[in-house]
């Protein structure tokens, strides 16, 4: 008994040093040297300013202004989609969409009235934004990724189908040809993992930055 207690006490300290300090410091050190870009979150800087992480979704939205005042709800600024940009997926993070300091699931159940309402709301918003540029688009034509919240609330990608629909709006608002926008979508579509796993996705941040470069918008 006494022997076990002594060994356990020494053991937990020794293992804490080895596995809790040496191991993470070693891995982090090697990563910082070998893969500095990845290890620091694939940050994208423009003109010395950090505009995002390539693999973290952000809201391409502007603060909602009513009577010359920014609208706030529960302490958070209410935003509305910026029509010049491809929109990322619905996000259920706390403290407003795409909060990368507090990732959260929507936790909406499969048979929930609340789930139906949330999905219906996302469909309505999508149709309001895209409908004018996609005549004939109805609820049945909305891709699921545009109506369902992502898991992390930080999904950086949208489905190619979703991007092709939004392309009509982008082309019209930015006075580009649809072919130009479609070519950009293809360029920023990530293929499936190892050729067969997962789904192809369009990286919204990269795509939007490319659009800004093309049309001369500075940040």
């Amino acid at each position, binding site marked *: 008994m006494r022997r076990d*207690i002594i*060994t356990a006490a020494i053991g937990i300290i020794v293992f804490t040093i080895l*596995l809790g300090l040496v191991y993470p410091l070693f891995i982090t050190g090697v990563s910082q040297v070998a893969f500095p870009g990845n290890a620091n979150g694939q940050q994208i800087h423009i003109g010395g300013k950090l*505009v995002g992480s390539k693999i973290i979704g952000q809201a391409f939205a502007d603060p909602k202004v009513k009577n010359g005042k920014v609208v706030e709800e529960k302490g958070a600024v209410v935003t509305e989609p910026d029509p010049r940009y491809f929109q990322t997926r619905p996000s259920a993070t706390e403290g407003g969409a795409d909060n990368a*300091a507090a990732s959260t699931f929507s936790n*909406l159940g499969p*048979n929930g009235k609340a*789930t139906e309402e949330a999905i219906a709301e996302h469909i309505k918003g999508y149709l309001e934004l895209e409908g004018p540029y996609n005549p004939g688009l109805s609820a049945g034509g909305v891709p699921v990724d545009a109506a369902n919240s992502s898991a992390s609330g930080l999904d950086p990608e949208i489905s190619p189908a979703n991007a092709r629909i939004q392309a009509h709006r982008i082309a019209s608002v930015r006075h580009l040809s649809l072919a130009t926008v479609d070519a950009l979508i293809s360029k920023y579509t990530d293929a499936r993992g190892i050729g067969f*796993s997962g789904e192809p996705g369009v990286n919204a941040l990269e795509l939007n*930055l490319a659009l800004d470069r093309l049309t001369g918008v500075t940040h």
Partner: protein
Amino acid sequence: MTFLGWLTIVLFAVILTAVAIPFGGYLASVYTGKRVFLTPIFGGPERFLYKVLRVDPHREQDWKAYAKSLIIFSLAGWLLLYLILRTQEWFYVPHALNPLGFEAAPWNVTFNTASSFMTNTNWQYYSGETTLSYLSQMIGLTVQNWLSAGVGIVVAVALIRGIIGRTGKSLGNFWQDLVRTILYVLAPLSVIAAIVLVSQGVIANFSHYLTVHTVTGLTQTIGMGPVASQEAIKMLGTNGGGFFNTNSAHPFENPTAFTNFFEMLLVLIIPAALVFAYGRMTGNRRQGYAIYGTMMVMFLGAAAVAYIAEAHGSPAQHAAGLHTHVLTGSTGGNLEGKEQRFGIAGSALFDVVTTVTSCGAVNSAIESFTGIGGAVPFANLSASEVIFGGVGTGLYSILLYVLLAVFIGGLMVGRTPEWLGKKLEAREIKLAGLGILITPLAALFCTALATASHAGRESISKAATGPQGFSESFYAYLSQANNNGSAFAGYTGFIQPSAGNVGSHGVTFADLLGGFDMVFARYAPILFALAVAGALAGKRVTPAGLGTMRTDNPTFVVLLIGVILLVGALTFFPALLLGPIVQGLTTHLY
């Protein structure tokens, strides 16, 4: 459903098996004390550790001594972890290790977290990026990720030794097994896995949270941290506690479909290889193949059901007018709470991989799975995680089932049951029966308590009305009893108004009940498994005769699957009907 979706599932099974067979041979060498190719590197550190720990590796332990060392060591780990988590604001300096100056979480939720990491559960009432400093993640959670995994593995090894032991009562030495597990098994795999993960985009840094000026001029804060080191051992040790709240759905933990595939392999590699190691250690590899076959049949069945159900979509989607079939450029299906890059198949398979094991990592919100899709993780947990199962725990749990199946088979053919030449008697069967039933008992008892009491119902999320509310509670205590840690995450035990724990408080009832659920259902079966090992260790081996029932052929696989399904179904079916199954059978919205 798509062809590529099915291909992902099939190729995963093939690749896993191809890797697990040779790795199982390696594990068998490690635990029988043979020289392996890493001996020249780790032999020195191994001897050094014995010296520091004041351990004599040659001192043999019977089951009681083995269990005593294990319990005392676990307790020491619990105490230190609780202390670390409760005092994290004292470690504000050096700055980089607690850059946001997070305070400690309250005692009740810390009790739950410490119990959960000691037991390999990694239940997350807390949310990593808003609760824990980098130092707490490292010296607290990461350390227990290693040690709880090690404890699980050594129990399986001890049980195998008991089964094959021909002389005396010895099961080996706990400290030696633990040290060897860490050095020869977990360390090399973790280091390689962590580096591979970073090469694909998992982060590893000590930066302050990033402040981003977004493209449209908004401000976004992005949580950072030493993620890769923890991610690797979290998957390998079937722990599953995420660095971030959304676990492996977070792009910094699981950035691509490739990492998703890789992480799934990491989860299953040790549990799968241990089965082959068991075959080798018994001297008859077919014993291992039979168990592996049993597991694989049930695994593929679970994956298929989950994929079909999720690809079909949910009643809420259909009611809102959404079409959920596959379109050009859209995966269709129930994408609520799932990431675009993983799609339906990658999410359903990940969910099955992490709930058949005790991993409990998630790359999608299980609460948002369809009724039948959600019933799959329920069923996996109801089978007490014997389909591969947690590292070690899976093997020792299914070996108890094997014992039961041999006993039942023996009764059917009217002979004294024998297993690997040893006669099974009342004592072993009683112990195995208790070891099998104690986890379901804990799960159902806690669920009943939580659903029947006002205090328990407070944890149910507002949106979870009707059967979903029951599912949340049931899943919480089932998952904690099985030391899984995945969740219908709307169920809450921690109220946190803002990051850093100022003004936060735990839900005492849920925190404590869950904590006891985890500890009881972890250590009681361990003790029963070790007791079985002790009972078998000294038995004489009689050569197999013509009438001996074989445990290495397809007939036995069928019998074993039957026993597992029967025990699981009889225990849990009524409760499952009230939650996920009723939702799967109706399009009604609640």
